[in-house]
C-alpha cells in the first residue's frame, strides 16, 4: 500500500541512529574493569601473557558455545537447564564411537545425542506444554544418569589425535582450535540473532508471545528450534570437553548450566525474554573465565574464589538491570 497524502509535510524521523542505553553494556565495562584490576594487581605473575590470555579463552570455550545457544533460549522466554549434563552425555557417546568406528561416526554420534535431547526438550515444551524449567530439570538428571550408566561411571579415553586436535588441544596456525570454535560460535550466533528473521522472531516471541502470534510468528516453532539448537550446542560443548581432556566422562560439564546462564544474563539478556545479546553472552563467559583465572593466580582458595565470583556476578547483573523495566 502506498500512502502519498502527506509526504510533503513529512515530520523529521530519524531512521539511522540507534539510541544508546549504557545498561546493556555493563558487561563490557565490567570486563575491562576486572581486566585492569588483575593486570595491575597481578603484575609480573604471568596474568598478562598471551599464553595465559589464550588459555582463558580455551578454558571458557565450552561455556561460550553453550551460552551462545542459551541466549536464544532465554531471549525467547524459556530456559534450558540440561546443557551441562547433556555435554557430559555427548562427550561419552562421542568418545565411545570415535575409537570404535572413527572420527566421523564419533562426531555424528555426538551431534545426534544433542539433536535427540534437544528435540525431546522442544516437543515437551511446545507440544505437551510443560514449562521448560521442569522439562530441562528432568532432562538434567536423565542425561547424567544415562552417561553414568553406559560407561559404568568410568572415563572413556580417546586415542585419536586428529579428534583431540580438532576439538581440543590442537592449533590452526598460531590459534588454538578452541579459540576458533569460540569465534565461530560468536559470529554465527550474533549474525543469526541480529540479521536473520529467525533471530528477530526469537526476540519478538520472548518480548510478547501473544502479540507475536497475532503478527503471524509461529512462536512454538521458534521455541522448539531454540531448544533444539541449545541441545546441539551442548553436544558440541561436550565434544570440546572430550577433545581437550582426551576422553569422555559423565562429569564433564556437570554444573555448567549455572555458569552458562550466568554468562548469558551478565551479557545483558533479559531473563524474562525479549532482549538478548550474543556478544554480551560471550563477553560474560569470558568475564567469568577471567575472574576464575585471576583469582587462581592470586592464590585464593577455591572456596574464596566461589564467593568472590558469586559477588561479582550479582553486582554486574544488579547494575545492568536497573531501570530496564521502563
Amino acid at each position, binding site marked *: 500500500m502506498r500512502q502519498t497524502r502527506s509526504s510533503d509535510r513529512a515530520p523529521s524521523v530519524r*531512521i539511522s541512529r540507534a539510541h544508546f542505553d549504557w545498561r546493556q553494556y555493563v558487561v563490557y565495562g565490567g570486563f575491562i574493569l576486572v581486566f585492569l584490576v588483575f593486570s595491575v594487581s597481578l603484575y609480573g605473575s604471568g596474568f598478562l601473557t598471551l599464553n595465559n590470555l589464550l588459555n582463558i579463552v580455551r578454558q571458557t570455550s565450552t561455556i561460550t558455545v553453550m551460552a551462545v545457544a542459551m541466549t536464544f533460549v532465554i531471549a525467547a522466554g524459556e530456559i534450558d537447564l540440561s546443557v551441562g549434563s547433556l555435554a557430559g552425555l555427548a562427550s561419552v557417546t562421542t568418545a565411545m564411537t570415535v575409537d570404535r568406528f572413527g572420527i566421523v561416526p564419533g562426531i555424528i554420534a555426538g551431534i545426534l545425542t544433542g539433536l535427540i535431547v534437544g528435540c525431546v526438550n522442544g516437543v515437551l515444551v511446545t507440544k505437551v506444554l510443560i514449562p521448560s524449567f521442569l522439562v530441562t530439570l528432568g532432562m538434567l538428571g536423565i542425561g547424567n544418569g544415562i552417561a553414568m550408566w553406559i560407561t559404568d561411571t568410568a572415563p572413556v579415553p580417546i586415542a585419536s589425535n586428529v579428534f583431540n586436535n580438532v576439538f581440543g588441544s590442537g592449533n590452526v596456525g598460531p590459534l588454538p582450535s578452541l579459540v576458533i570454535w569460540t569465534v565461530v560460535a560468536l559470529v554465527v550466533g550474533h549474525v543469526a540473532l541480529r540479521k536473520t*528473521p529467525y533471530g528477530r522472531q526469537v526476540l*519478538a516471541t520472548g518480548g510478547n508471545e501473544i502479540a507475536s502470534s497475532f*503478527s503471524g510468528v509461529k512462536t512454538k516453532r521458534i521455541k522448539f528450534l531454540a531448544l533444539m539448537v541449545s541441545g546441539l550446542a551442548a553436544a558440541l560443548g561436550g565434544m570440546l570437553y572430550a577433545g581437550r581432556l582426551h576422553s569422555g566422562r559423565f562429569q564433564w560439564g556437570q554444573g555448567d548450566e549455572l555458569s552458562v546462564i550466568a554468562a548469558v544474563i551478565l551479557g545483558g539478556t533479559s531473563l524474562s525474554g*525479549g532482549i538478548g545479546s550474543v556478544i554480551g553472552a560471550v563477553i560474560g563467559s569470558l568475564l567469568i573465565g577471567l575472574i576464575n583465572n585471576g583469582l587462581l593466580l592470586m592464590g585464593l582458595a577455591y572456596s574464596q574464589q566461589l564467593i568472590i565470583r558469586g559477588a561479582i556476578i550479582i553486582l554486574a547483573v544488579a547494575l545492568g538491570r536497573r531501570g530496564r523495566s521502563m
Partner: protein
Amino acid sequence: MDEANSVAVGMRRITKAFNGVRVLDDVDFDLKQGEVHALVGGNGAGKSTLMKILEGVHSPDAGEITIQGRPVRLSSSLDGREHGIAMIFQEFSLIPTLNVSQNIFLTREARNAFRLLNDRECERATRELFRGIGVEIDARLPVSALSAGYKQLTEIVKALSQNARVLIMDEPTASLTKSETDSLFHIIAQLKERGIGIIYISHRMEEIFRVADRVTILRDGKVVATEAITDLTLERMIEHIVGRKMERSFQWLPRAVDRSGAPLLELSSVVSGERVRGISLKLYKGEVIGLVGLMGSGRSELLQSIFGIRQLTSGEVRVRGNPVEIRSPADAMKARIAMIPEDRRVQGLIMDHMLKDNILLPLLKQFTRNGFIDDRAARRKVGEYVRSLDIRAESIFKIVRQLSGGNQQKVVIAKWLGAEPDIFLMDEPTAGVDIGAKTEIMTLIRHLAGDLGKAVLLVSSELPELLAVSDRIAFIRGGRLEREVERRTIESEAALHHLIQGN
C-alpha cells in the same frame, strides 16, 4: 437523611491531563451515603480516569476531594481503600486457587493463640458477611469453581469486610447472566439500606434506569449534566452522551459499494465455542461493515475466529470465493487478512521493543535477502510508514512503550499496511487514543476502503465513528447476527443507541 453530613464523597473542580491532553476538565462529582450514582459517557469521556483518581491510582492536577466531609489526599490505591473506597473490578482481582474465605481475608487472616492462621474463624466470618447480604455460601469453595456472579459477590464481600463505604462498580453486569444480574440489583438495594454509596458505571441504559438514583453524564472530560434519574428520559440521556456538535470527520458520506462480484470475505454459519454461535456475513471489496452490540456479545470473538486465534467449531470462511482453512494468524496472513487487535499492549505490540522492530515483525519475509534481513531497506520502508501515517516519534528506534496511545495504535496499523492485506479486521481501533489520532484513523479507514478497495470489518464501541465510516451495520447479540442494515437507514446516533439497546 440530613443532606450536609450524608455526603460520602465529594470531588470538586477535578482537572487531569495526560501528555498534555486534558482528559478531565473542572469536573464536579459527589456521592451521598446510601445512593447509587451512575456515571455514564462514551469511551474516552473520562469516567475511568475520574474513578482512578478517587481510588488513588492517579492524582489530579487540580481540584479537591473530600470523604465524609474531610479533605483527603489520595496518593495510592491503598490510600483509597483506607478511606473506605473499593473498586469492584471488571476483571476480578481474586486468586483462583485460594478459597472464598482465604481470598476475603488475604493478609488479614484471623490468628489463633500460637499466631497461626485460624481458618475456622475466617470461614465463620465469611459466612456471616455473606449472610449480611442475604447469600449462603460454602466459604471453602475455591474461587475458580465459582460462577462469574459469585466471584463478583466475593469481591463485594471482600470490600465490605474492609469497611468499604463506597463501592465503584465498572460494568458489573458485563459477564453476568440475567438472573445473576437480578440478584446483583437485589444486593445493591440491601447495600443502599446499610448506607453504602455506589458509583455505577455502565453502557447499558436500561440498567441505569433500574438501579440508579442520580446520573452524571461526562463528555470529553466535562460534566454535561448531573440529574436525578426521575428527571431524565432515555432520549435526553443519549442526547447528552452524544452531544450536539459533530465534527466534520464524523460526518458520513454515502459511498457506492459494488456488490455484484464475489464477496471478498464470506462467512457461512460460523460457530466458535460459546461466544460465536452461527454468523453468516458477506463483505465486499471497498466495503466497511460496522459490528455493533453490547459488551460480551461476541463481536471480538468473531474477528478472532476469522483470524485463526480462535478455532472454528463449524461453518465456513471463503476469501475471494474460495474456501479457506485458517487455523492460525499465519494462515490468515496468507489469505491476506490483517487484524488490528483490541488490546494493543497485549496483542498488538511488543512494548519494550523499538518502533521499527514492531512494524517489521509481520514483514520480515519481505525484507529477507538470502536469509538475512536487509536492515537498510527495512528502515527506509519503516520511515515511509512513519511519515505517511504521521507517527510522532523522534526516531524509529524509540521504544513503543514511550509513545502516546494514538501513536502506538498507528504503529499497529503500520505493521499491517506493509503486509498489503485485502481484508482488515479492526477491533476497537480508536480505543484510548486522543481525538486527533481518532480522526486520522477514521480518515485512514475511509482511504483503505474507498480509494484502495480494501474490505473492513470494524468493531467499535465508539458509535459516532462507526456511523461515520460504515457502509452497513450488523447487530450482534449473544453470538448471533440479529440483523443487518444499510448505514443510510440509520438517521442518528441516538437511533443506533435505541437499536442496540433492543427497543
